[in-house]
């Protein structure tokens, strides 16, 4: 299952974000790139967020740059505060990765990323919007990526739910018309 830009737009719609102004891409290395509308986007960190999403999402979901770029970039356009949280979160991930394995988060192997998450308070610690560095990563990056996936049909269908809570998929949907 490939997560496409279309999936991301759907997730953005669920999150109420409509500002999809001509985005192109984050630099895969986290460097500053220019979006389609000529706005500079300070390093959204497609590499780090891609590396994070790859271990958060199930293996059958193939995370694409288009998916993350669309979702995260548009959140940044919609909300300046989110841009700084995203940048700070990636900085925290890189700092943890450097400390553990001597490389930026995006350069770690899958096993190293999993170990890093298991060995720290990432995921297992609290998730607080204005908490410690790791608590903010949990809230603004990890939970945000999980919401985008599991509060949309993309992730919902994997557990048998095509219109999960949080997704504006329509009113009064009854699968197969009801119990057979």
């Amino acid at each position: 299952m490939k997560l496409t830009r279309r999936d991301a737009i759907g997730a953005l719609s669920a999150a109420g974000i409509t500002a999809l102004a001509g985005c192109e891409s984050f630099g895969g290395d986290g460097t500053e790139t220019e979006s389609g509308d000529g706005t500079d986007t300070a390093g959204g960190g497609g590499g780090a967020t891609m590396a994070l999403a790859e271990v958060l999402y199930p293996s059958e979901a193939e995370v694409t740059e288009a998916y993350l770029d669309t979702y995260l970039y548009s959140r940044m356009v919609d909300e300046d505060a989110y841009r700084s949280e995203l940048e700070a979160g990636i900085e925290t991930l890189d700092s943890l990765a450097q400390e553990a394995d001597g490389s930026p988060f995006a350069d770690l192997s899958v096993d190293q990323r999993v170990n890093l998450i298991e060995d720290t308070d990432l995921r297992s610690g609290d998730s607080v919007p204005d908490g410690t560095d790791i608590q903010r990563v949990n809230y603004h990056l990890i939970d945000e990526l999980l919401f985008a996936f599991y509060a949309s049909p993309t992730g919902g269908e994997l557990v048998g739910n095509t219109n999960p809570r949080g997704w504006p998929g329509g009113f009064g949907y009854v699968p197969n018309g009801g119990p057979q």
Partner: protein
Amino acid sequence: MSGSQSSGSVDRTPVEGADVCVVGSGPAGAHVAHSLASEGHSVVVLEAGERFDMESRVDRMKAQIHPEHGVDEIWDMGGDRDAYTSSGELEIPLNKRRVKGIGGTSLHWGGVTPRFREKDFEMQTRHGVGVDWPISYSDLQPYYAEVEQEIGVKGPDDAPHQPPREADYPMDAMPLSFTDQLFAEAGDAIDVDVQSAPMAINDGTYDRNQCLGYGTCEHVCPSGAKYTAERHVDKAEREGATVIDRVPVQRLEHGPDGEAVTAAVYVTPDGTEHRQQADVFVAAAGAYETPRLLLLSDSEQYPDGLANSSGTVGRYFLDHPTGGVIGLLPEQETHQDEYGPVISSVIYQYYEGEALSERGAINMMLINVAGESPAEMAMRSSAIGDDLLAQIDGQYGNTIGVIMNVEMLPDADNRLTLDESTTDNHGNPVPEISLDAGDYALNAVETGQQVGQELVEEMGGNVLFQGGNLDLSPDEMIEDSKGGYHPMGGTRMGTDPETSVVDSNLKAHDLSNLYIASGGVFPTAGAANPTLTIMALARRCGEHIHDNEF
């Protein structure tokens, strides 16, 4: 006219020459204000909370789904402004049950809109318990019809166990959800009637967004399909009413002879105190804040609080004690969350009948959101990747649930008082709630839960959770099962000034120009979700004020 918003700044000074001052902009205040503004009266509405924008509601919805956020955070409740004390048998998580803002608690209600039944107005006469209301169902029926048209209600025209109707509902009934159908099939087997719930959710018939199916009606509807009192605040403003937000009213003042209220004293966000004068005052700040406001308005002439010569302000407080049954159907996918609205069907079969001399009425609501959603499970877990998916897949998909509200009897010892040991951000004592529901309600919970269990077992399922705030300790309960959703009483209506606060027109017995529009005027609680009745009473009150005060 002052008090109106302008670009860049908001004028929160009093309106000169106001006919009517309404304190509170929830369902009661909004409908009184709209009713009177439509008749050409100069109306000013004072609201303690802010005017929430639509754009923030998706984030509020996400906060609801996020396991780290409490319900109180969704609409920014809490802190010194909203401090309270809960000291009775029943723990009331007050700030998770109310909203301060334009639209009031209708911002986070579920939108379930049954009428009270004929028996609800005649409990003493029919069943020898409680008291009769000073008005009957037929007195209120035209206003029920008016409100249903005003707000837009989807409902079943020919379903059983409903009070008499004069016309069809404004919108077609809610279709049965997947689990409603499971309940209906099981109900057929054991003679339990499942029927569509009356709901104030727009299906496209009304001039507001239609339901998009976020599945979070309670506590926030990002699409705007669920009715909120913001609609009638807006309509009142278009009829010329002035609505001032973020101005908590501190007290009501009366004239030297003590016969009439002369001003509502409020404070603006910058701390400036103002006095809003008017010919008529309507206290519509909800059943928690209205008695508190009256008690805070004590004076030399009224040392026990305004409108309190009976000593009943704050007494006979009521709520709907809760119960619930969550079942697991091992062999059956239940498709929770997928329908959209959180409730679409109900069981009203146990609302009336001879049993009401022994137990309260039961209002059973079948929920389409039993258990956590996939996103909530994902965020709450510590797992990642395939392990996380497997965990969610194992937890999601087979739950089913019914929640219930039951009737409790009025009791003078159930009361709201002022906790003088704790003050809010303006130095006013906070409300203290002390509530003990009693056996009449407990008997109803037990009956309702027995029915819920039989339905789950008829489906071949097992009961995972069963209980409510009468048969479990607060520590054993999930947050949703704790009470406080439907505060009523505390400023009850009656014909006798010795035992009630307002008369049948909601006018205070003690003062010539003070009305109370609120669930606080209910003499008994019924079991039906009270908001439709609150709005019907408010429109009736507005009409009375128009006909008699000017």
